[in-house]
């Protein structure tokens, strides 16, 4: 059942030319240089320190590494992160995971 809905969504995204983040449950990330990062569609904070922010996604995790990281604001689905961002990494757990 879940596989069917996912395939339907992918199809709709291709046919109707909709943005991927609307159709698929993936985060949308806006970065301003390496200073600010705005992440939408996250599912909660797993770990936060000065050097790393680990966010839970619908399927997988997202790791933002950097220095002097500060969460300027946080809402149920949005995070505004500031600091010197070094890199972004995705950990996929696969469709069956979690």
């Amino acid at each position, binding site marked *: 059942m879940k596989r069917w809905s996912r395939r339907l969504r992918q199809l709709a995204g291709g046919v109707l030319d909709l943005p991927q983040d609307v159709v698929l449950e993936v985060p949308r990330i806006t970065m301003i240089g390496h200073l600010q990062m705005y992440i939408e569609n996250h599912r*909660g*904070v797993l770990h*936060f*320190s000065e050097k790393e922010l680990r966010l839970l996604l619908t399927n997988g995790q997202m790791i933002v590494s950097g220095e002097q990281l*500060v969460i300027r*604001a*946080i809402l*149920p689905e949005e995070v505004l992160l500031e600091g010197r961002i070094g890199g972004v990494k995705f950990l996929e757990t696969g469709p069956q995971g979690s």
Partner: protein
Amino acid sequence: MRNGLREWVDGHITITVRGKRFERLLNMAVRDGIRIWNIRRVGLEVSRCDILIRDYFRLRPLLKETGCRSHVERRDGLPFWLLRLRRRSGLAIGAALFFIGLYMLSTFVWSVEVSGTKMIDPQRVIRAAAQIGIKEGAWKVKLKEPLLLQKELMSLLPETTWIGIEMSGTKVKLQVVEKDEPTLPLPTGPRHLVAKKRAVIHKILPEVGRSQVTNNQVVEKGQVLISGIIGNETRQQAVSARGKVQGEVWYVSNTSVPLNQTHYQLTGEKLQQQYLLVGPYAVQLWPFKKQFFALAESSEERFVPSYAGFTSPLGWKTVTQLETEPISKQMTVEEATELAKKFAREDILQKAGADAFIQDEKVLHVTSENGKVYVSIHFSVIEDIAVEQPLVGLPQAPANNGNP
């Protein structure tokens, strides 16, 4: 996403949270709709974040649940300001009193200014204004409507056409427009009209008084023309004689005119010099030459920007020099005679007075000598010869006798 003003009005605090499960606390708080911002790690198990005061009380059960402990670091925002202000009530009362005092003082008149007076003494206007209540120290609330005040002030000062009352803050401006009253002729005492110089009477028109001479009569200087004493021997009155007496006066004028006349004429050549004005000094900028022409007429034009009474110290000056050259002309004796006649006429009319005219003129003598023409001309001029002579030691006429 964040609203700085609301955060400030509601009041917010900075807390440090000590505990292992800080991320869990964060997720739960966010899910409950608690606003948290500026989150940062301080130590291994210590984090610092900002939170609204009312959200802090909602956070407490979550802290207990996750086994974290919080400590308030800093308080900021309007509620804390008010608390601090209550502690220093003297300051608050002082500030309030200051504003009340400022407002109270602004309801008084502090100065009265008069403008537009020409003949009336400004002090009189100020005194009249003080009579109807407009004075220094008056309470503005007690003053009447400006239109009423204006009427009252104008009735106190009848020689004004209009008085504008303008209240700008604590200053009252009174703008006075004075009436332009016609100047009354000065009352004159009893007098005769006598002859100014030796003449033949041309025309006599007495208005007040008795005519003593007739047309074509020769009068000497000082002879009474219109007498100020009217009536017969038994009943006499002295009046201020008035009237017009025209007499024919003879003049002989001797004029000389040189035959060689020099005058200056523009050649059409011109040059401009530019100057920069710095305060009282003019600095010549272009061109640097001092003298262009041997003979020149110069005119200057200044541009100094000024606004509202302030004049810029910098300005610009342009001097235009127009070259002139002398032209000499040799006149014939006839031309010189005509010129001499013209000069003589002007001279005579200036001597004879305002409404004089030349009745007859005759060239008596013309000689040409040493490059000059000497002309002697006889003029017969009709002019006003009457002059007032006051009567002294006589009973004064009643005032209405001035206008019979």
